[in-house]
């Protein structure tokens, strides 16, 4: 599998002009292309400040001193890197073909976006088996990242995504993307989301839902097998049962939404039936995730 099969061919050029929009002030230590709230060594002038002993004498603006006979320090805005972390749900519930493809497409596209801006990207597949996380900075690694993502094998984890996710998140990220289907009990979600704010100020939960989950197409007497827990449930699918299912599902996501609001986490629901470009150029821009 290569990049071209995962994403449309001119995709990278299409998204090249987009960047992650964030109000998060947390930045990495290294120099980057994003303007930082701190003062630094960029070419952009910020303001003057009176000199106090201890300040770097090299920053004294001698022209101002000549005119005013006072020591002023000329300050420039600092440009720093953004640290973006992507967490991909690797539990078996993501195994649905379309869901997994879309998840990889999204991860890959966001990664492209980040790396294209010379920011630091880290990527982790939440899974039982330890995989080497992807941590790179700079546009040169774009290709490497897309091949890393496309080489991901089908999800095999049977553990709860919510319980093992915290181990896979790097601290002090500017933006944290969580790609999941959200199909876990709401109590588990609460436990996990409670810990989230300490990792990042800008957390974005991308809920990937397959059309199959939204509108189950099967009918008759079925033994439904949970892909993760192998739990079997006998169901005679009827309209009332389907209605009930729909009600439960909406209720679940509503609760998840309110939970996220409480912890200041942004959510965005995407469906597998939607095209990746629709998601990027409409949904994400409208949500002000990228610009």
């Amino acid at each position, binding site marked *: 599998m290569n990049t071209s099969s995962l994403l449309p061919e001119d995709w990278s050029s299409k998204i090249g002009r987009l960047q992650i929009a964030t109000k998060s002030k947390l930045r990495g230590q290294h120099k980057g292309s994003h303007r930082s709230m701190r003062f630094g060594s960029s070419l952009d002038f910020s303001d003057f400040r009176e000199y106090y002993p201890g300040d770097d004498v090299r920053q004294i603006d001698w022209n101002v001193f000549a005119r005013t006979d006072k020591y002023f320090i000329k300050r420039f805005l600092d440009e720093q890197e953004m640290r973006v972390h992507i967490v991909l749900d690797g539990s078996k519930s993501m195994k649905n073909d379309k869901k997994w493809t879309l998840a990889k497409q999204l991860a890959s596209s966001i990664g492209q976006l980040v790396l294209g801006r010379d920011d630091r990207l880290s990527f982790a597949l939440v899974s039982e088996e330890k995989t080497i996380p992807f941590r790179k900075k700079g546009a040169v690694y774009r290709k490497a990242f897309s091949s890393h993502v496309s080489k991901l094998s089908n999800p095999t984890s049977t553990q709860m995504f919510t319980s093992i996710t915290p181990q896979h998140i790097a601290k002090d990220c500017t933006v944290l993307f969580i790609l999941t289907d959200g199909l876990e009990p709401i109590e588990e979600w609460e436990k996990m989301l409670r810990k989230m704010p300490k990792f990042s100020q800008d957390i974005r939960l991308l809920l990937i839902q397959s059309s199959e989950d939204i509108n189950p197409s099967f009918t008759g007497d079925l033994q439904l097998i949970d892909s993760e827990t192998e739990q079997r449930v006998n169901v005679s699918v009827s309209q009332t049962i389907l209605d*009930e299912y729909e009600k439960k599902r909406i209720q679940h996501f509503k609760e998840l939404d309110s939970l996220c609001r409480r912890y200041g986490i942004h959510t965005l629901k995407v469906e597998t039936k939607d095209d990746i470009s629709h998601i990027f150029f409409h949904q994400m821009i409208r949500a002000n995730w990228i610009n």
Partner: protein
Amino acid sequence: MGFGQLGFLWAFFIPFIVLLYYFFRKKYRDQPISSTLFWETVMKETKVSPYLQYLQRNALFYLQMLALILLALALLQPYIKSRALAGEQIIWMVDTSASMLAGSKNESIFEQHKRDMLELSKQLEGKPVTILTMGEEPTILLREESNLSKIQSAINKLEVEYEQEHLPKMLDFTQSLVKGEDTVVYLFTDNVDRTELPLENERLSWVVKGSEGPLENVSIFRFGANKNHQTISALAQLVNDSSMEKTGRFLIHSIDDNELVYSEPVSIPAKDTLSLSMKELPLASGLKAILQIDDDYQIDNESTVLLQSHTSQTFVDNQLHQLVTAAFQAMSIPVSSVPSEQLSDLSKEGLIVTNQTSLLETATSPVLLIGRNDEIAHEVNGVVMTERDDVFAYASLDDIYVSSLYPPFVNYETIARVNEDPFIQRNQKGDLIVLADVQMTDWPLYPSFPLFLWSTAEQMTTNSDYLGIFSPKEKKSISLVADEEDAEWEVFSEENEYIFSVQQGSQFTAPAKPGIYSLRAGDVEKQFVVLLEQKEKEIRTGSSYSIGTSTKETLSETIQTSLVPWFLLLIILLLLAEWEVQRRRGLTN
């Protein structure tokens, strides 16, 4: 093979349920889905309410408790009380005489009794019942039968037999059926007086179901006819039993062509008798009288008479051996011993038994000649051979020894021989000639001798085309020999409907229903009439009552039906359920 309790057929549905359970258990297709997160809750809510869930969790406990409680209850021997007919042994005597057909317009007494019986049969509660019908010979339809469906079908099959009920005889017979237990005898009849019932037996009680309500009856009590040269004169006696004057029409039909020969409107005063005499009716072989009148008993409004010369007298020459007279008497045939000289000028018709050869020519009556007074016998030696003839129907002449014979008549038909010599002959008139004296043979010592004499008398005195008058189901021996070897005598009704066959040599039993019948075998046809007995022409009404010491006037008693088997069944079911619960959960839970 048979089944005692077909009622338990329903029990077959029990294995059937299990079968259904296994057949229709839902087959679930496997369907892998992302998460059963929402499905699970859907299932749970439709499946169990919290209360049921609680029950489910503690099912084993409750089942065991229930089983034990039921066991304890079963040990208490529970029963339900229900009303049932009293008595250990129940006998139903059903009067099937013709008078049972009387009744109001819609329903005869008989139908009413049948309904009563069906009603009572529901209260039997498994007690055995014996049903017998009354008549000259009692018929036991059911003996100690407790199967309700059999009882009811027997009741439904009951029919009126027209025979007289012979009540005293029946009562004696019934008493012989009674065993040591408490017995209740139900009498389904029209009228029985308390004094007629035998009340000696302490353990026997009687329930009489009579015919209620006043019934009106007008009957043709007597109907007779006599042939006078070329006309018939008839006499009828009509009796009105009811308390009001009755008017109607009296008709007489000829039975030959069913032509109306006499018709007269009649009016009979209350409780009175009307005699009618009809003269100069056209000649017919029989007459059928019909009384068209509105009453509650139709069957006695018809009467039939056949005009037959039936001679019953037998005159025996007193010169013959005493054994001849004795033989006739042995067969209950009335015999008059007459001096030889007077035989030639007998005024009355009858069978003449003599040895005077001259009487064959002179006598108008049929003659049985035993020996000849005009010839001398010669010795013979040999075996007796008989032809096929009605007179030998019951009498076999095989072992008879004949010492000597008189010379035979020429041109007479020979029906028995000793070697080649004729032994018994018959002339054209039908007279029989035995060519030996009683002393010349040992025949009188055999039982075939009186039987031969009886057959002869029967054949010669009755008109061969008419068998006479019978009462319903009367049994009578008639010497019937069919012409062909294998032909049977078959009885047909007036409407040419086949009724039954008579086995050759067996006793003849008349049909039950009154009317004209014919007996046929091949081309031969004989007619006979079945008439109601005089006693059946009057109907009686009587109340229903019960007498008895054993049950103290109560007809029903309370019986206790044990419920223990049902409880045991329930317990077994519970044990099965427990077993199933245990099996599903495994031993540890």
